[in-house]
């Protein structure tokens, strides 16, 4: 370590009202390293990075970058210095093309855009060089999440940036995409760039990082070289206690069939076939996983099961009752709970307080509503209870949910749905954005639900999550279920083949097994 670090953030303070998001953070990053920030939900990682790239102005503190002090609170300044960030929520304008997004804000406003070909060529060149497969003329809104992620990273490269910040880039990626991303990061570092990386997934953190800093309660509590630590220690530093890496699972016998799906098909929102004749059952005391690369019909399957997408064929039965084609308002009256995939789009109402978000599905029935009127006493009590039980970090139950960190929003959604006491629990991405300690807690809660006799369907792109708690795993590919596997880590490779649609090879492997 030299005296003059590449980047030094010094004694950064940031408060939102009474809430302290950064309480005197000091962070040093060396040139040409991948430096990972770890920390619980709401520890202040995103806020710190937003300060670094000028989006948020700190109340106190200074930043020295390449030996020069950085003017704070100016994104322009950050960009001029070659600092670029890939945000947790993408900063891409959906109705513009990739290329347009790249030239956005470049040059003077009076510039006439007449260098389209040149820009496209540069994008293709960069894309080829890093193997990113980005098409310059694609509209952002037509791209999958993984593609958008690559577009974001390439954007930073396009802007010629040499300090790259990635805030939970892998939260929405498939394992394959994650692998590609991590390789890419290493390549970038080899090209002389520096990377700050945020993730809750310890295995990938261990794989990619040079050094790791752990944040807790708005401070950095620990910095180490990756080679000198291990996941267990990191987890302990983050959470302040030992985290169970393997969850104990009680052996229970599945009971009667709760959900039975027969030859279900439906189209996606834009009218393309998405689910093609899927059949399966979920029993009491059973967690069935659905694995697959995202975009293979899982989202549509979840929506169709809950009446949010019209069903084209087949049937869905719950507790023996046909619920196919019922409107969501009707499905909502059945004993079903649903943790949706995209919490901002569907799971929560951002400007409303936590209380009213907890109220969401049960707004018109006891105990929250009687004779048409809401009982805010009961709602508040219940919300407080959930906040406490799931350790949601918030200043009060009356806080607008948009002011919570991403992971804490997710915890509230999970808490709300688990508390509904359903017969059937549909989970689409359980731990998206949740920290390692909370993940353990949330998974334990789900297992407890299993033991309490619920039937649970867990759709996930996280194989770890599936292997940790499922009883059996179905693999979805191109709208069909192409295979079933036990949650046995030794069969990981087989699962990968299935997920990629190589059914024949996978079968061969299964026989060999």
């Amino acid at each position, binding site marked *: 370590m030299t005296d003059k670090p590449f980047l030094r953030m010094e004694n950064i303070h940031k408060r939102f009202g009474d809430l302290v998001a950064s309480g005197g953070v000091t962070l040093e990053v060396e040139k040409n390293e991948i430096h990972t920030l770890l920390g619980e939900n709401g520890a202040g990682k995103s806020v710190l990075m937003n300060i670094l790239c000028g989006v948020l102005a700190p109340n106190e503190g200074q930043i020295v970058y390449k030996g020069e002090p950085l003017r704070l609170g100016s*994104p*322009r300044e950050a960009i001029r210095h070659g600092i670029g960030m890939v945000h947790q929520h993408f*900063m891409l304008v959906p109705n513009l093309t990739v290329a347009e997004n790249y030239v*956005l804000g470049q040059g003077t*406003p009076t510039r006439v855009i007449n260098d389209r070909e040149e820009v496209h060529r540069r994008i293709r060149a960069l894309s080829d060089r890093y193997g990113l497969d980005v098409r310059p003329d694609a509209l952002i809104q037509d791209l999958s999440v993984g593609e958008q992620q690559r577009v974001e990273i390439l954007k930073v490269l396009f802007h010629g940036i040499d300090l790259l910040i990635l805030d939970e880039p892998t939260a929405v990626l498939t394992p394959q995409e994650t692998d590609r991303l991590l390789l890419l990061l290493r390549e970038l570092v080899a090209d002389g760039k520096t990377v700050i990386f945020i993730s809750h997934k310890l295995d990938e953190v261990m794989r990619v990082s040079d050094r790791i800093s752990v944040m807790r309660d708005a401070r950095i509590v620990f910095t180490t070289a990756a080679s000198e630590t291990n996941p267990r220690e990191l987890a302990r530093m983050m959470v302040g206690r030992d985290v169970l890496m393997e969850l104990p699972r009680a052996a229970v016998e599945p009971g009667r069939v709760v959900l039975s799906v027969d030859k279900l098909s439906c189209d996606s929102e834009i009218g393309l076939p998405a689910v093609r004749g899927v059949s399966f059952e979920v029993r009491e005391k059973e967690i069935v996983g659905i694995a697959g690369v995202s975009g293979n019909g899982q989202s549509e399957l979840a929506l169709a099961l809950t009446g949010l997408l019209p069903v084209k064929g087949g049937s869905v039965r719950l507790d023996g009752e046909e619920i196919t084609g019922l409107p969501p308002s009707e499905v909502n009256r059945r004993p079903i709970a649903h943790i949706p995939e995209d919490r901002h789009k569907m799971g929560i109402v951002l400007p409303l307080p936590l209380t009213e978000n907890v109220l969401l599905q049960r707004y018109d029935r006891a105990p929250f509503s009687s004779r048409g009127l809401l009982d805010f006493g009961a709602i508040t009590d219940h919300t407080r209870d959930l906040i406490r039980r799931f350790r949601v970090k918030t200043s009060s139950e009356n806080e607008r949910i948009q002011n919570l960190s991403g992971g804490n929003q997710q915890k509230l959604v999970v808490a709300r749905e688990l508390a509904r006491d359903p017969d059937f629990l549909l989970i689409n991405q359980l731990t998206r954005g949740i920290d390692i300690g909370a993940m353990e807690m949330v998974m334990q809660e789900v297992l407890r639900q299993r033991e309490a006799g619920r039937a649970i369907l867990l759709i996930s792109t996280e194989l770890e999550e599936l292997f940790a708690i499922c009883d059996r795993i179905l693999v979805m590919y191109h709208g069909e279920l192409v295979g079933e596997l036990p949650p046995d880590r030794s069969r990981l490779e087989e699962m990968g083949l299935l997920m990629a649609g190589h059914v024949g090879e996978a079968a061969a492997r299964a026989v060999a097994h």
Partner: protein
Amino acid sequence: MEDVATLGFIATTIGATWRLATPLIFASIGEVFSERAGVLNIGLEGVMLMGAFVGFAAVFATGSLPLGLLSAVLGGMAVGLVFAFFTITVKADQIVVGAAINLLGMGLTAFLFRTYYVGTGRGVEIAQPLDLPGLSDLPFLGEALFRQNAIVYSTLLVVLVAVFVLYKTSFGLTLRAVGEHPKAVDVVGRSVAAYRYGAVLIGTGLAGLGGGFLTLGHSNQFVEGITSGRGFIALAVVVFARWSPIGAFLVSLLFGLFYALQLQLQAQPALAIPYQALQALPYVMTIVALVMVRNKGDTPKTLGVPYNKA
């Protein structure tokens, strides 16, 4: 009735259509800029009134038509600046401020007109139709298209420039992004507020010009409330046109057409329809057309939402 099918009738209708559409074209193209940047200016009526009044007053004082038109633009922008300050800097609700702007525009212009101009009875010199050699005298086409004044012709220029600015310049690209995803603009170091100010000023400047057309390009007097609801129609035009300048141009013409038609048809003595039925025609047709084209969800995402940096 006998006249309805004649070429003369059609030619006059086309000529009137363009003139009646002109103030709408200016105001709605301006509002396209504003709304593309996420700012909904429901105060267009007040802005247009201000343009009409200031333009009138300027020509009244100086006798110079170009100066009058420039003043109409600046008058509109002045109101726009007030609107922008409250909606962008203070971050107040755009509809509230827009409503206030309408009241202010209505009240101030009427008050000033009364205090300083009333009773003078004098009108001002207005823009005269251009005589385009060869074209103005063409049969049919001459009457329909080539006997307008320069302000009417300039609508063509405005739509072309608007398309160019919005789709071919860095400014336009950023402006469109501001309405859709302001944060994405913020993080690349462009000021969302500055762009919104710019968009509002373009919008209100053009709306002021639209108002100015009424007093300087069509009739030569200011009358309290002379805009007669055109600001509201322009708002409707923008939505109907799906926030495109060319669309705004065409929809304005469509509206002008229905308006011209109803005036023309009323003058047909043989038509035994209550005149109110004809008067309602433009409004009914707008609804019918809107239902037929089916609005896609292409509203600028943050329309009406103030941008908070944090």
